[in-house]
């Protein structure tokens, strides 16, 4: 069963209730009854925060240990579960050395080792690159036979092969559709899409281009290299990128291929070990002061929370212009203009960390736009967003582009890339292929 609903409708809360996790958290109020006939195993979204132990086999054994399975039986359960998900390594493999897709398959094995009759999946492929997601879906296909499954998945088209029932819940509570995928999407597809829910079929399109791009070079990087990989920065070698006014470059490639590193280098945030990213005037972006950089290039990170530096939405928007030397009145004017454009005016006084996922994303893009840079670089901007936010984001980015801005998106999202890209750079192991 696929559980759908607009963001904020309580899908994850319902999954947690079925898994018996709400009773333990003790927070909030509950009413009504919930009857679960069977045992549950849960796979969550984030591969980084659901593995417990350092060795793969030990991690799968964790659930059986907790539930008191005799030691003699645990390891046969572990081996069966690892084989079922197609885990490519032995029990002693370090869990820290796994890719995101491998971690998720290990998490599925960890749930299977409990021999649950109900498998609960909370967006199990959302954090993965397309290849990793495909392998996880393949593993799920094998293990779902003969088992009840309740699953939340944003990108419905990807889950269609796994499901035979769709239940849609409304934001205020209540079920608004329940039936086979054919019936639910056939009868209510358009209404669901309008409510911001991803449905099979064509994604929202970018608004048609206004005017003709001037194609003037806004940012140019030659022979960029980064040789000293850190915690978040992968190595990169010999990369050339040119961003032009009114055009969009998409950076694509698997996780770890260097997309995000390249975004950081051309955004002037990390100093390359060779080459330089320069603006139209020839200034080396990595050597500019931050307050000068934000007038030329805006960077939007994958997790909006990493970029929030104040306690109020409106302050997030005035801080850029103020840093860049604008007067307070002017900064306030720019901020309220952006708040209107991004539909956040009513939230001006709110704390950025309390916004919904879609609102956080729009705010983080607005913080980069408010200093009117000539180039905007975004890392996975549509990650985890519902259809509504996806459409709003496309409109915002197309507007920037048509106003003469140069866009660069690093993304796995085929919908985003096909909607915007004029040029694609495919990265493989730190090089452009």
């Amino acid at each position, binding site marked *: 069963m696929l559980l759908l609903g607009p963001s904020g409708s309580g899908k994850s809360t319902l999954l947690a209730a079925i898994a018996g996790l709400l009773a333990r958290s003790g927070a909030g109020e509950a009413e009504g009854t919930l009857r679960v006939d069977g045992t549950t195993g849960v796979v969550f979204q984030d591969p980084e925060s659901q593995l417990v132990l350092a060795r793969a086999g030990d991690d799968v054994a964790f659930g059986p240990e907790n539930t008191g399975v005799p030691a003699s039986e645990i390891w046969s359960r572990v081996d069966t579960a690892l084989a079922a998900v197609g885990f490519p390594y032995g029990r002693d493999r370090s869990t820290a050395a796994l890719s995101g897709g491998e971690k998720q398959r290990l998490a599925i094995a960890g749930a299977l080792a409990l021999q649950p009759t109900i498998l609960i999946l909370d967006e199990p492929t959302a954090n993965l690159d397309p290849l990793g997601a495909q392998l996880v879906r393949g593993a799920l296909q094998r293990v779902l036979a003969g088992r009840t499954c309740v699953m939340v998945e944003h990108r419905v088209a990807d889950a269609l092969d796994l499901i035979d029932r769709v239940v849609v819940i409304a934001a205020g509570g209540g079920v608004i559709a329940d039936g086979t995928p054919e019936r639910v999407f056939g009868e209510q597809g358009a209404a669901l899409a309008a409510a911001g829910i991803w449905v099979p079929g064509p994604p929202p399109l970018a608004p048609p281009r206004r005017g003709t791009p001037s194609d003037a070079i806004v940012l140019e990087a030659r022979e960029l290299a980064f040789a000293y990989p850190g915690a978040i920065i992968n190595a990169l070698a010999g990369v050339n990128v040119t961003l032009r006014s009114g055009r969009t470059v998409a950076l694509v490639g698997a996780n770890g291929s260097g997309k995000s590193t390249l975004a950081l280098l051309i955004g002037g*945030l990390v100093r390359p070990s060779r080459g330089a990213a320069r603006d139209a005037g020839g200034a080396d972006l990595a050597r500019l002061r931050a307050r000068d*950089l*934000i007038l030329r290039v805006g960077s939007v990170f994958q997790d909006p929370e990493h970029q929030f530096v104040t306690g109020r939405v409106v302050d997030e928007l005035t801080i850029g212009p103020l840093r860049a030397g604008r007067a307070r009145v002017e900064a306030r004017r720019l901020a309220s203009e952006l708040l209107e454009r991004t539909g956040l005016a009513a939230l001006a006084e709110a704390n950025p960390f309390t916004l919904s996922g879609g609102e956080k994303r729009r705010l983080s893009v607005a913080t980069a736009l408010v200093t009117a840079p000539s180039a905007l670089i975004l890392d996975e901007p549509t990650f985890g967003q519902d259809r509504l936010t996806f459409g709003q984001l496309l409109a915002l980015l197309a507007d920037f582009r048509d106003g003469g801005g140069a866009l660069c998106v690093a993304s796995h999202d085929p919908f985003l890339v096909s909607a915007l890209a004029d040029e694609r750079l495919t990265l493989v192991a730190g090089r452009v292929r």
Partner: protein
Amino acid sequence: MAKLGGAAALFLALFLAIDPLTPAIILGVLLAALPASGLAPRALVTRAAPLALAALSIALFNTLFGNGGIAGGVAVGLRLLAIGLAGLLALATIDPTDLADALIEHLGAPPRFAIGTLAAFRLLPIFAREWETIGLARRARGIDESSLGDRVRGFAERTLALLVGAIRHATRLAAAMDARGFDSGLPRTRARPRPLQAGDRAWLLAAILLATGATAASIAVGTWRFVLGQ
């Protein structure tokens, strides 16, 4: 457990004695046993180098300014080196998962504490990544950290942002552990039971023998001096 016990026995002997002979004997045996530790020589050198440097400088300092002269300085240096090496060998060869298992099995530590700590340690690399990301994200927001004041303020703000993320990660990990029945009140079984075996006992015995032997030898030679008995 045997490794920790062995190291503890050696620590005790080294703590009690402030003469040069006791640590020299222990140090000699530990050095001779190094090849059996299974540590790569290179890793060992990089880990032991700061230790050796510290021991040398303290020995020098004590020789010059202490009241024991060269003998006193050498004794202090040897003592520090032997304590450091025993600790290093014990820690570097203990696997954290094995340690948690052993604490639960042999010392009766609550699994909630031992496994919870183990799981929390797994989040450290994530926090390192977030710290780096937050720093770069701040530059993207126009925040320079060139002056000292900027940096101090920046450090406080980055720490707060890291804390928000840390709580989110920890909450998720806790939910994932709950979902797998952790600390649910059921009696827990152990997938990796590891009763103390003959080999472990032998290690522990060898360490105790070394500790007492070194002490006895230095008493017999007449150089042994009690830490409090100046």
